[in-house]
């Protein structure tokens, strides 16, 4: 048995056991949230970590997944699963549209354009009241499965599947291509890499995965309001990716788990959750640019000279 297969089995065991270690409804809710955050962090990491495109608009795809699936179920009477599929496709397609900007813009300009895209999406959710209900919100949304434990198994299972898919992807020549674009786009182009196509691929796939996470969010909280998808959501995803270790597969997973559970362990401080995210983001960039993963590997390297 390879190390990889053992890890997958351990991960499956961990997912199976966790809801029975944290048995209160509250903690099981946190577990679902954590699985969703893992999905979101993985989606942003593909674009930001592997392809090197600073995308501040990931919250928009999370929103599109949530809104498209909910509206199709609530207003058009679709079943959950076809609605989910349509929502994922919609997120992916809008991701391709944002990629049209990404192929022409770099660095700071792309960051601001994608931020603008997130702001516009948020404003559309608020102002297009006939479809989205605006700030009033949509209420009484049911999850696709009967209870929280089942929802956790579902989302965590999907997160594991997405992890394995992306893990295979970044080991394949496609992963080399994306990394080549990240390191030096001009050199990559000179070797025959069509950077525009592969950036569009990364944006589209990343957007679809964020949309996939969004599909499960409304059923989990029961309501859908635009405020759940402000640009701060893009920043929390970024904090998870950076704190864990950008451009590694396991890093964003660790970041998502740490940043979901850390504020819960420090409860009683009310507004502290986002303060911790902000502080963690700044401190990690300053002192530990490779995140937890790099800190761990350099610690091990130091112990074995």
């Amino acid at each position, binding site marked *: 048995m390879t190390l990889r297969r053992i890890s997958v089995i351990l991960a499956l065991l961990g997912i199976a056991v966790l809801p029975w270690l944290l048995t209160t409804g509250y903690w099981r809710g946190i577990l679902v949230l954590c699985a969703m955050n893992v999905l979101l962090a993985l989606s942003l990491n593909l674009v930001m970590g592997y392809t090197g495109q600073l995308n501040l608009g990931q919250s928009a795809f999370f929103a599109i997944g949530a809104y498209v699936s909910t509206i199709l179920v609530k207003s058009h009477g679709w079943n959950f699963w076809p609605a989910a599929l349509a929502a994922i496709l919609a997120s992916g397609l809008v991701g391709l549209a944002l990629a049209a900007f990404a192929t022409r813009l770099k660095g700071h*300009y792309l960051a601001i354009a994608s*931020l603008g895209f997130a702001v516009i999406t948020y*404003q559309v959710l608020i102002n297009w009241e006939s479809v989205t209900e605006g700030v009033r919100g949509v209420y009484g949304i049911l999850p696709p499965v009967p209870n929280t434990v089942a929802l956790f198994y579902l989302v965590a299972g999907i997160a594991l599947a997405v992890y394995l898919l992306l893990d295979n992807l970044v080991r394949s020549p496609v992963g080399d291509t994306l990394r080549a674009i990240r390191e030096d786009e001009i050199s990559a182009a000179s070797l025959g890499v069509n950077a525009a196509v592969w950036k569009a691929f990364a944006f589209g796939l990343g957007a679809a995965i964020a949309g996939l996470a969004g599909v499960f969010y409304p059923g989990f909280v029961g309501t859908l309001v635009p405020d759940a998808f402000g640009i701060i959501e893009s920043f929390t995803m970024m904090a998870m990716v*950076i704190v864990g270790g950008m451009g590694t597969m396991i890093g964003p997973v660790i970041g998502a788990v740490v940043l979901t559970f850390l504020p819960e362990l420090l409860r009683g401080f009310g507004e502290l959750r986002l*303060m911790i995210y902000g502080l963690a983001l*700044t401190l990690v*960039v300053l002192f530990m640019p490779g995140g937890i993963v790099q800190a761990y590997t350099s610690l091990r390297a130091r112990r074995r000279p």
Partner: protein
Amino acid sequence: MTDFLTLFIQQSVNGVYLGCLYVMVALGLTLIYGVLNQINFAHADFVTVGAFAAFFTATRFATRVLGIPDTGAYLLSLFSALGAGALLGWLVSAAVFAPLRRSGADELRPLIATIGVSVLLENGQLALFGPIPYQFDSPLARETLRIGKLFISAQSVLVVAVSAAAIAALYAFMRFTFMGKALRAVAQDRETAGLMGINENLVIALTIVIASALAGVAGALLGPVVVLTPFTGASLIVKAFACVIIGGFGNMEGTIVAGLLIGVIEAFTVQYLGSGLIDLVVFAMLLAMLVVRPTGLVAERKEENV
């Protein structure tokens, strides 16, 4: 017809005064970008800090401790906002920009680090001041001048006067002082400026302090005309970026024109489309600008880097 004309002029006046506030914020961003090639994402949150500093100076310290009357207290609060902004700018320069510059980080790490600072500042203020909006009552906001059918608040006259003075002072500083010359030299070519004996670290720190002081003053001017919450400044960052992109990154004149333009467009958007659509319109303009001449903007930056 005359009613239409009055409305048109009235909204233009409102737009110019809004635009002056945007220019005060956006100038700082573009100044930092020009010298450092970096974005301070927390810049607009300095506006909020300035607004709160002014609020507590005007309504608590000046009136209750020093016993200065209304208008004097408010004018004094402008200086405390300036100081608060400058102090924050120095802190961010010393704690974030300087270490990252020394470690030779790429262009995106300072942006990400200052996003963290922004999130921290907003939520720190939320924990300190709470989510309930503060009523910052400036005596000048209550007074209105009437010219024919036009109504102009004394506050907007002050906003235009202070921003005009600040911009004039900034130009004079850049043009006529040694430090200003050093600043322009560092903006043109940091390494060569360093070889000429210019202390580039001092110049960069000074630039960030000046930019942040402008943001602080903008906060004191903005406080009395908006609902003051920990997120007041955050709502400005999108418009400040729009000014900077439309004006051209690092281009001061362009930023001033773009700021006034966006102010006027906003005033007319409120009049004819509704206030909910402001961010949509401004950002659609920004994205359109990026589509129309993205290569021009990016190519300009590349030349500087080579």
